[in-house]
């Protein structure tokens, strides 16, 4: 069973994504802010993080860099799931440098696609 940190500021969407991921057999913790995310990363052991970049007060880019500066969090797989288009945000080089497994454009990603992405990434992790 994968433990997922879902970083999603929108309460409604957090509940929808969380329900779908749980329905697919994952354990999900939701964080709405960067501070909440860091607290959860400190207290729980996550396999994967699903990250919206647009967060109030601090953005997901900061969280991403902060996470990758901690050796003990480097094993956590990352899916960026954001309403900011990928081409606007980062090159494939930056994604590789930050060890981001996948960039999903939120308006065009169904719940099934999100869940399948989690499964694919986690099965690669353990194969």
């Amino acid at each position: 069973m994968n433990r997922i940190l879902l970083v999603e500021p929108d309460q409604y969407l957090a509940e929808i994504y969380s329900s779908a991921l749980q329905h697919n057999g994952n354990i999900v913790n939701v964080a709405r802010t960067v501070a909440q995310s860091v607290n959860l990363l400190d207290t729980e052991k996550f396999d994967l993080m699903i990250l919206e970049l647009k967060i109030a007060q601090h953005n997901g880019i900061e969280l991403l860099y902060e996470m990758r500066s901690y050796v003990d969090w480097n094993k956590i797989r990352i899916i960026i799931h954001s309403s900011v288009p990928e081409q606007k945000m980062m090159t494939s080089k930056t994604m590789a440098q930050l060890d981001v497994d996948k960039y999903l454009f939120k308006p065009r990603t169904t719940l099934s696609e999100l869940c399948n992405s989690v499964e694919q990434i986690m099965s690669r992790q353990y194969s």
Partner: protein
Amino acid sequence: MKQHSAVSIVLTRTNYGEADRIITVLTKDSGKIRLVAKGVRKIRSKLAGGIELFSTNDIMYLPGKGGLGTLVSSRLRKNYGSIVKNIDRTMYAYDALKMIHKITEDSPEPEYFILLEHMLAALNEETVPLDVIKTWFHLQLLKLGGHTPNLITDSEDHKLSATERYGFSFDSMSFVKQSSGPFGQHHITYLRLGITFETAKKLSQVSVTPEILTPLVQLTRTMLERHSRVM
């Protein structure tokens, strides 16, 4: 052992053990230094506020063996807090720190510190367009590294003309006459100003259209990638 002081900007941070962080800072007068900041991760320490990214700090440190010193104290001098209000600027700020970190692998001159400070100040000011900052920063890095493009004559040593169109040769770092080339007088003029102006804010006061500016961001970035260790 005597403590040293410096004005510094944090380039990178990684964790070290349970509670420590290793930071690499660029200083004005002492080049690049690696320091361990003890106890900053888990508990509120007097250092915590002074090792943030996108800020200038006054630090006291003890030099150490093997190139790793110890941070003794840090006081925030200037925080460029507006950068993180904008996701695009945040992304570029991290990119810029990486570029500076790579370019200054050997002993860096004080000019790199001053450039980085100006760059962060520009990013912090939301009225200075990001593409202007990028173009200016790339040009300044090229200038400091001795790779300024030739903005006076073309690849055949003829004076650049206001009526001709040009392509660009990254090998010779000069413009090449091309009848339907993407670059013209306005591009070249803007590049000249970007090299000359001390700050991105000054450059932002020059009127420029996206049609001129957007290709220059990519052009200057490619120049850097070809001639400096930015990537």
